[in-house]
């Protein structure tokens, strides 16, 4: 399904621009009109890493008028195996600045906007609103779902790509024209199930294979050329050397872009994706019990203080009997430390075990050395102990 161009054409190309972009201008499908649209386009690349490197370099060379780069990280030596926008002398430099310098060297006609900051719920809508199109080159599920949700809420298309070892996937998610990321993957894998590139490795050149698909799709969308990858997932296998596409339809039950959405604004993506801090990971070692063990403790009359660290609305939906509410935010901030027990063992739980791990870390730091948390939270309790309770 062909789509109209995303961007209106600029008034004219300069003589310098005509010389520089001549190989585009003589392609009938791009031509003067398409190149003028690229000149007027504003594209944001989320992440200047593996995918962001080739994406930014080719978008710059292609003559996209304004390129935004958002990345909070600094260049590390281990990045250079694949993040070709950075070089040896950039080690230790902020990636956004290093990438901007490369973009300017490739094409000084491009206006570069540097966002040397973390993309968060607080700034994502603001940052995205300044661009026509977003390229997702992030490296973690939490940011990927945030990018998707913000793009859907703003009605913007984005070109998604992900890589792992020899495998890559790419698509265009645009809720107004087709499915979103949640239609394909409603939820991320359980924490720890799917390794990151840092944990599992990635073939460096895979970034170019997938990043170049992303740029191709970006150019097609901006200029209204060809058949965009909306409603199709590209699956690349470098070992077999095969590219194939599968169709992806909009899921009428999608929590975000479906007929009865339950996600109507940005959510807590670390919680959604089960991302835990290093402190929390350390705190749960040897201080984790299962829901079944909690049931045995309660049945045996063990003297514990069962603390639900979720939000009041969640506590209203379902709770473990005998628990009291003390939201994680108040424990972590220190505001509720005085309400933690000193005479009994504290047992924390939340929905799925992430927030309770954070609360446990804070409680242990405050001296509650025998505190524990419940693995899998209230969902595990429902699953293992009382399936009659509602899940949410």
């Amino acid at each position, binding site marked *: 399904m062909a789509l109209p161009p995303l961007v209106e054409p600029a008034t004219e190309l300069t003589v310098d621009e005509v010389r520089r972009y001549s190989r585009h201008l003589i392609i009938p499908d791009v031509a003067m009109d398409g190149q003028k649209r690229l000149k007027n386009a504003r594209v944001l690349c989320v*992440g200047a*890493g*593996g*995918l*962001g490197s080739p994406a930014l370099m080719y978008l710059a060379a292609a003559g996209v008028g304004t390129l935004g780069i958002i990345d909070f990280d600094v260049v590390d030596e281990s990045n250079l195996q694949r993040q070709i926008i950075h070089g040896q002398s950039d080690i230790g430099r902020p990636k956004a600045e290093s990438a901007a310098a490369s973009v300017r060297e490739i094409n000084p006609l491009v206006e570069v906007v540097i966002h040397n900051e973390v993309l968060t719920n607080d700034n994502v809508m603001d940052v995205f609103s300044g661009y026509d199109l977003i390229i*997702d*080159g*992030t*490296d*973690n*599920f939490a940011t*990927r779902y945030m990018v998707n949700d913000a793009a859907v809420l703003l009605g913007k298309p984005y070109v998604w*790509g*992900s*890589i*792992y070892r020899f*495998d890559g*996937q790419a698509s265009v998610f645009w809720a107004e024209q087709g499915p979103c990321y949640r*239609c*394909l*993957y*409603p*939820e*991320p*894998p*359980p924490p720890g*199930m*799917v390794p*990151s*590139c840092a944990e*599992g490795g*990635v073939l460096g050149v895979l970034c170019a294979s997938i990043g170049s698909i992303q740029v191709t799709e970006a150019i097609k969308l901006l200029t209204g050329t060809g058949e965009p990858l909306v409603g199709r*997932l590209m*699956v690349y296998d470098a070992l077999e050397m095969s590219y194939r596409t*599968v*169709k*992806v*339809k909009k*899921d*009428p*039950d*999608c929590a975000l872009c479906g007929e009865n959405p339950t996600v109507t604004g940005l959510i807590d993506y670390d919680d959604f994706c089960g991302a835990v801090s290093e402190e929390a990971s350390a705190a749960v070692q040897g201080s984790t019990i299962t829901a079944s063990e909690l049931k045995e403790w309660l049945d045996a009359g063990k003297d514990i203080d069962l603390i639900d660290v979720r939000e009041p609305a969640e506590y209203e939906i379902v709770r473990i009997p005998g628990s009291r509410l003390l939201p994680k935010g108040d424990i972590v901030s220190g505001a509720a430390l005085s309400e933690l027990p000193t005479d009994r063992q504290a047992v924390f739980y939340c929905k799925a075990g992430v927030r309770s791990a954070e609360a446990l870390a804070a409680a242990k730091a405050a001296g509650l050395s025998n505190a524990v948390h419940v693995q899998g939270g209230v969902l595990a309790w429902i699953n293992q102990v009382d399936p009659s309770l509602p899940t949410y």
Partner: protein
Amino acid sequence: MRVELNGVPTDVDTETVAGLVGGLTSAERGVAVAVNGEVVPRSQWHRALCTGDRVEVLTASQGG
């Protein structure tokens, strides 16, 4: 029933997409399934498989 699972002819003892995924992995999260070249949305995993179906199980990856 024999289906083609990720390119390999495979005998499966289930009749639904959900059953097939459940037999492969304990985690249904982060998985997409395409049958005959089209992704089956999670809400329709109860749908029946047919002999000879080409089934592809895809895993979400986060790397970028």
